[in-house]
């Protein structure tokens, strides 16, 4: 029983991180109707910027404090993500207004290649470290109840906590702020939003910037866990089954979807894996999402689209 609970907790904590990655997809889809294939590349770019600036700043400014260097690097990386958002709006989205969804989708693929290439050209291809002081050693709890106790990975726990706080902040931002409401209005109907004076271009910059900040936070967390390297771009793929399952337009969907996928893939790998050869967790997540699609094509929380014929 202890092992089952341990696996469950591990899955929930991994799921929280998947939710964070999935949130990037949802934000952009909600505001601009684009499925953003560049989310992984944005994550890599942001993490590379954070890792490199946190290493360069102590050299440049003679700062000894790691904490201060990290804070400055975070703001510089954030500013870079704003620049990326602005450039994307200017160079990609604005010229493609009123184009087919597939065109915009392909454009995001192009953005992904540009960001991956640019990021590795500017910042390098080696493995870089982000040290934000995350605890690495595990902790055992409830040793009196379960034999051998329950092993909790402190780093995963802190990461899940940060992800949860960010998700909560974003939810508040969407529900309670004027900009957040404007974003939702644009998501519901571009033309209606424009007719009441919401500047579409400005909103797109904001939403891509917010998605960039989400990518930065996810990049810092994953980068601290894995080291910053090209593989981080593939981490975003973990968010795909989450948005399929949770629905592309729902923030709660991204959260619940992430948790279901996280738990589902860990339990499947541990309990089903040994029976069918192992290494199944990645494709199992997609299978799980596809099963949900059979019954709810719009995902768990997605909007049901009814077209008049």
């Amino acid at each position: 029983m202890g092992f089952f609970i341990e696996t469950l907790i591990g899955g929930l904590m991994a799921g929280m991180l998947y939710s964070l990655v999935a949130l990037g997809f949802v934000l952009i889809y909600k505001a601009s109707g684009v499925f953003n294939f560049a989310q992984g590349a944005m994550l890599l770019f942001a993490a590379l910027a954070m890792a490199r600036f946190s290493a360069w700043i102590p050299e440049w400014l003679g700062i000894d404090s790691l904490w201060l260097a990290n804070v400055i690097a975070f703001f510089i990386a954030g500013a870079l993500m704003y620049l990326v958002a602005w450039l994307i709006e200017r160079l990609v989205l604005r010229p493609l207004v009123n184009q087919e969804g597939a065109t915009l989708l392909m454009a995001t693929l192009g953005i992904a290649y540009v960001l991956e290439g640019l990021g590795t050209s500017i910042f390098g291809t080696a493995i870089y470290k982000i040290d934000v002081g995350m605890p690495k050693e595990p902790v055992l709890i409830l040793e009196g109840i379960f034999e051998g106790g329950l092993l909790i990975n402190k780093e995963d726990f802190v990461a899940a906590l940060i992800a949860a706080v960010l998700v909560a902040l974003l939810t508040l931002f969407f529900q309670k702020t004027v900009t957040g409401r404007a974003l939702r209005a644009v998501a519901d109907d571009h033309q209606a939003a424009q007719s009441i004076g919401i500047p579409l271009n400005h909103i797109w910059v904001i939403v891509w910037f917010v998605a960039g900040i989400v990518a930065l936070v996810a990049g810092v967390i994953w980068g601290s866990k894995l080291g910053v390297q090209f593989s981080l771009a593939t981490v975003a793929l973990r968010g795909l089954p989450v948005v399929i399952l949770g629905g592309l337009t729902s923030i709660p969907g991204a959260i619940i979807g992430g948790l279901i996928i996280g738990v589902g893939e860990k339990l499947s790998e541990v309990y089903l894996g040994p029976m069918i050869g192992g290494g199944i967790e990645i494709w199992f997540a997609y299978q799980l999402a596809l099963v949900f699609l059979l019954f709810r094509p719009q995902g768990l929380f997605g909007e049901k689209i009814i077209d008049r014929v």
Partner: protein
Amino acid sequence: MKLRKLALAASAAAAICSSLLVAPAALAQAKEQFFPVLVYRTGAYSANGSQWANGYVDYLKLVNARGGINGVKIIFEECETAYATDRGVECYERLKGKNGGATLFQTLSTGATFALTEKAPVDKIPLITAGYGRSESQNGAVFTWNFPLLGTYWVGAEVAIQHIAKKLGGVANLKGKKIALVYHDSPYGKEPIPVLQELGKLHGFEVQLLPVAHPGVEQKATWLQIRQQKPDFVLLWGWGVMNSTALREAQATGYPRDKMMGIWWAGAEPDVKDVAEGAKGYSALTLQHGAEPNSKVVKDMLDLVYAKGQGTGPKDEVGQVLYMRGLISAMLGVEGVRKAQERYGKGKVMTGEQVRWGLENLNLDQKMLDSMGFAGVMRPVQTSCLDHMGSAWVRVHTWNGSKWEFTTPDWYQADEKLLRPMVMLASGKYAEEKKLKPRTPEECKL
């Protein structure tokens, strides 16, 4: 009209002059040996691939700086594969006929090696897979164009068990033990399985197989299983980010790192550098060499290539594990050409077929290796028509938290009595499947 004739005459004269000028250039070009270089400087494995590539091309530059191969200059061209098999095959097709024809290919990918094994005999180009590729390709009678020089994954697996047995105080103590293999779920990662299972039957230990999907960034479930099953040792057959992730997960689940041992592709600086103290005690097999910053060949590299501003990568990476792997891989190819020249003409450009002869008659004795700057780095390599591996020496180095070091001076040699029958069986099956007639010892003499 006159003007037109004048123009025609001038053009003709220019053409003749330029052909006279081009002729020596063409002659000079005929003295160039072309080395295509399949690399991955981008993609999920770029951090590791870049170091290998830097070592490889730097060595080719060093050979040129030393005067070429008996005067024949090396030219090379990189092709980016991103460690994708299809792109590896595409690079092979693109480069095989370039610059007078490819001397040889080093695929740096087991997947690409599987894909190219049938193409190489048709194109008559040798494939060197130093420390990787198909283990059964050691049998040169069947795999006539493959050269898994220095060792195969079967060698690695067998030596890993020898080392564990030594730690336990003898082979008899392996009985009843559990050894988990955490492996990259790819042809590369699956290579050691037959040997481990065979040794498990022989010595009475249990082998637990734990595959990890590419690229290996998610291993929580794998390490939860390790925590539950408590294997006595964990063998790590990973590549790139999979290795550092495995070490981080081991730390997070409290699995002792000194009970973990990696294959040579899981034993370089990028695998452990960021995990630092968290990887302390972790060991890895080496393909003879480890990090060799003090070797003579590295000093020559710094003096003859880097001091002139011609180095490919960062200077501080020269001599690191993967850099050395690339460098030694290039050296083996170059020595294949040099050996071929002994038979087919010194100072001449060799064809792929001639280089194959050179590679299967390699005889790099210690004196020769020492003179080339490899003293203390590697042991002799001697191939034959029937043995395309040439050496089965392995050492084990350990990460001390900041660098790799050889804690024990021991050299291991894989047990050929166990491996040779497996090689013959697997290569025999391959020959049967592909309807190949293995070369006889008489045919080898030709």
